[in-house]
């Protein structure tokens, strides 16, 4: 059992792997190798405790399980068909530190359409007093209407509210995934009640804090330089006025800002810029179009 210490951290990764999009061909062995290398790099270099992967299929489960087991991780298969829809998620977690529940899949149906809201997992950490409740989402593409997208935010918020009712203090909740919406979209602001305003969130504990607002756009750089740089998490080469979107985010309950067991480490919570991978996003020959994101919390 690992001992508690002030510098003890928990690190989470979300990555839309693009390996198994809804309508697409299976990945080639070379593409699968790239994905495995990305996950291995993240695990090895970031002391990561839980990795949630999106757009994977049953075909990739065995390969990721073998890789995970070899590095002291267990794999939970979240790939499941739900009615007309399908969840395409895998969860890798460090077995020495975490116990993770089987995922509960949440869908909302309106008329004949079904939308994936999230999968919820409950994470117990060795030495911690409370579990962390994590909602992993991969929302439908932006071809759906604004009303439908706001509905996704509402239904996700319903589940956040249900957890609030179970606790006397603010529960530990992390929401992460590919929302196909950006931090300023109404689904995440008006419906999910997430904010960029850390100080306001500390005053209004029902709000959720979204540290990924700061990654709207590239980091400061020299305009004269020609190097390619990350400017979000999703890259669309044919974009008219922008090729970058910030669709992948991690959002935190305010217990991670004050008064909880863990504090959000914003300096380490970021879009992951992985050598030999990030520049692939700019190649038309590649299937990869999402950068991974990392969230880190530190024990108080």
């Amino acid at each position: 059992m690992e001992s508690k210490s002030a510098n003890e951290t928990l690190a989470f990764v979300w990555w839309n792997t693009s390996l198994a999009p809804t309508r697409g061909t299976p990945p080639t062995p070379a593409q699968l190798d790239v994905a495995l290398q990305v996950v291995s790099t993240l695990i090895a270099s970031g002391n990561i405790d839980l990795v949630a992967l999106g757009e994977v299929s049953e075909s990739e489960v065995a390969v990721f399980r073998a890789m995970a087991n070899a590095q002291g991780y267990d794999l939970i298969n979240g790939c499941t068909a739900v009615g007309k829809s399908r969840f395409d998620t895998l969860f890798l977690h460090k077995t020495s530190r975490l116990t993770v529940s089987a995922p509960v899949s949440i869908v909302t149906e309106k008329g004949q359409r079904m939308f994936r809201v999230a999968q919820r997992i409950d994470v117990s950490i060795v030495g911690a007093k409370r579990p962390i409740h994590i909602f992993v989402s991969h929302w439908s593409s932006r071809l759906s209407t604004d009303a439908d997208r706001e509905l996704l935010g509402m239904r996700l918020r319903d589940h956040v509210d249900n957890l609030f009712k179970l606790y006397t203090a603010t529960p530990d909740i992390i929401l992460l995934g590919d929302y196909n919406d950006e931090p300023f979209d109404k689904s995440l602001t008006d419906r999910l009640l997430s904010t960029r305003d850390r100080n306001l969130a500390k005053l209004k504990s029902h709000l959720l804090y979204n540290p990924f607002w700061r990654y709207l756009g590239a980091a400061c750089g020299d305009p004269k330089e020609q190097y390619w740089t990350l400017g979000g998490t999703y890259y669309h080469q044919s974009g008219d006025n922008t090729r970058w979107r910030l669709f992948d985010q991690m959002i935190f309950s305010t217990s991670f800002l004050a008064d909880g067991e863990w504090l959000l480490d914003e300096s380490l919570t970021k879009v992951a810029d992985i050598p030999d991978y990030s520049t692939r996003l700019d190649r038309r020959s590649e299937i990869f179009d999402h950068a991974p994101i990392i969230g880190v919390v530190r024990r108080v």
Partner: protein
Amino acid sequence: MADFSLSFKKGIEAARIAENNRQEIRSVLKAVNDALSLETEGKVALRIQVIRPKTGNIVIDFLQNPLPSRTILEAHNPQALGGPVWELCEWSEDPNGYPCKIQRDRTEFVCEDKEALESALQNLLEDPGVGRRLYNLMHIEDKGQGSQESSRAQERPAVNE
């Protein structure tokens, strides 16, 4: 000056809509039961039940059971009084009627309207585990189970990898 008349009218209208929604949900369940009755000669029906788990302490259970109640959709055989009942899913309705939620086997369906509810119930009936339970209910008499004391059984949730 606040328009209390307008607020009152809005409240009345909201209550009317909510009642219509609740009646619509009941009509969907009735349609399911009508179909089941036709197909099973009246041997299978679904109903909503509020379940309060027992603590095991007779006094506490009688006076004030602190455990939260659950609302479920269960299947029973109306022709086999005292026969087994099977919990098919957890059930909840918003005070406004919709959304209503069906949770089973680590999956939650949030139904925003009548069509969605119908789809979710179809999905439930098409589940092989549910089909097996309903089949067993149809054939209670064949298996000589009609005189059994009523028992509430719940399917084991699907094991995830």
